[in-house]
């Protein structure tokens, strides 16, 4: 009997509890006027970052294109006159992209990065395809001070083998003979 009365009492109790929510804080974020706080690691719009010197970081290794589960990244590698690899063109189809971030994880040079920006709606489907000039930013993104060509053991114009940071000159194997 007591439990029956208690369950009946729970009905006005829960109604009162719901009523009190009238004076509680709203959970809604009024979006266009009020922006949701996005964490710095938010996986949004993809960009291509640059070296501290302003050169492109991307070495056109195709790893991002290979790892992409929806095949939305396409590029063509080429070499400049100093022997530096770079993408001739770089294309991301954002109407396919699922923002999984695998490309960022695969990238050996920190070139491709995901940014906290999701406001990229378009009226035309074709406008969702971003070319290299749309993707390249002028800054270093999340990795300031990192320059792949300064640490890579590859000879490019103006830098021979053994001249990179934390690298010793190559050993002449013939000098090691007994």
């Amino acid at each position, binding site marked *: 009997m007591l439990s029956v009365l208690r369950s009946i009492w729970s009905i006005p109790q829960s*109604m009162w509890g719901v*009523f009190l929510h*009238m004076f509680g*804080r709203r959970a*809604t974020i009024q979006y266009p006027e009020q922006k949701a706080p996005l964490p710095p690691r938010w996986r949004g719009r993809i960009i291509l970052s640059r070296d501290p010197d302003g050169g492109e970081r991307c070495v056109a290794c195709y790893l991002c294109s290979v790892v992409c589960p929806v095949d939305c990244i396409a590029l063509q590698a080429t070499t400049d006159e100093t022997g530096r690899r770079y993408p001739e063109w770089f294309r991301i189809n954002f109407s396919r992209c699922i923002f999984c971030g695998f490309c960022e994880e695969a990238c050996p040079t920190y070139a491709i990065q995901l940014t906290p920006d999701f406001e990229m709606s378009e009226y035309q489907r074709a406008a969702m395809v971003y070319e290299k000039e749309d993707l390249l930013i002028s800054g270093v993104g999340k990795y300031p001070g990192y320059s792949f060509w300064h640490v890579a053991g590859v000879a490019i114009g103006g830098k021979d083998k053994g001249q990179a940071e934390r690298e010793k000159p190559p050993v002449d194997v013939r000098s090691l003979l007994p």
Partner: protein
Amino acid sequence: MSEGMRYALIIVIVLAALMSLAGLLIWVERRLLAVWQDRYGPNRVGPFGLLQPAADIVKILFKQDWIPPFADKVVFCLAPLVIVATTLTSFAVVVFAPGIAVADLNIGLLFFLAMSSLGVYSIILGGWSSDNKYALLGSLRAAGQMLSYEVFMGLSLMGVVMLAGSFSLGAIVEAQRNVWFVIPQFLGFVIFVIAGFAETRRIPFDLPESENELVAGYHAEYSGMKFAMFFLGEYIGITLISAMIVTLFFGGWLGPWLPPIVWFIIKTLIGLCVFILVRASLPRPRYDQLMAFAWKLMLPLSLLNLLVTGAILVARGN
């Protein structure tokens, strides 16, 4: 102004007020539900989102008026009209203030009960003519639920009728000059409110249209304006039940300072908000629980209420 003109004017005002109130209730319900769920609700269209119902109606008017090829076309089109017609007709006997009523019949309460029983036809015919298993199951549930709950809905009001000595809604309000009937008839009030929720098929008694089991129940095949008619019927229905609760238990238009009609409107609006609050807070029971609750608990309770009220009246010698 002649007598006929006066009544025509009252009818037009009541119809217009009810239709616009039903439209506005869409906004009120969405807004209040949102407020009680820590949200804002529709607040973009017009000031405070007040034009949201207008936008909804424009949208629903431009929807394709689709009748399923397997449906019984005539009945399918007629069914939504029945519920609007019966609920609107019930308002004929509601006394808004002294002298402001379409017809203060001496059998007003019986008329209301009869009309709310007729409303079941709309749901049964709508579900039957849809030729859809979910719609049919929904309308079967509605038929069982409304028949069961009507039994003690009528019985719960008999206490009020005994105290007032009349079936006329005007006389019932006048009989509450000293004390509102919610105090001497508290049990009857609770039973009537429960039956009223079941009659309007609102949460927690919305089993005929329970979304997670029956898609949308009896109106699963309806769209466009015909669907809107079902909704209009539902909103006018809750306004009617709220107006009846106010008339029968909360002294109708009686109240100090303000004009009688204002008191009636304020009380009815509070009733509507309680309807929405209940929707925001209570879950829906299982169908067998619903039936057992009606026949094993509510019916005996309303009979007990009837007996005790009668006994007290006889003992007091009137």
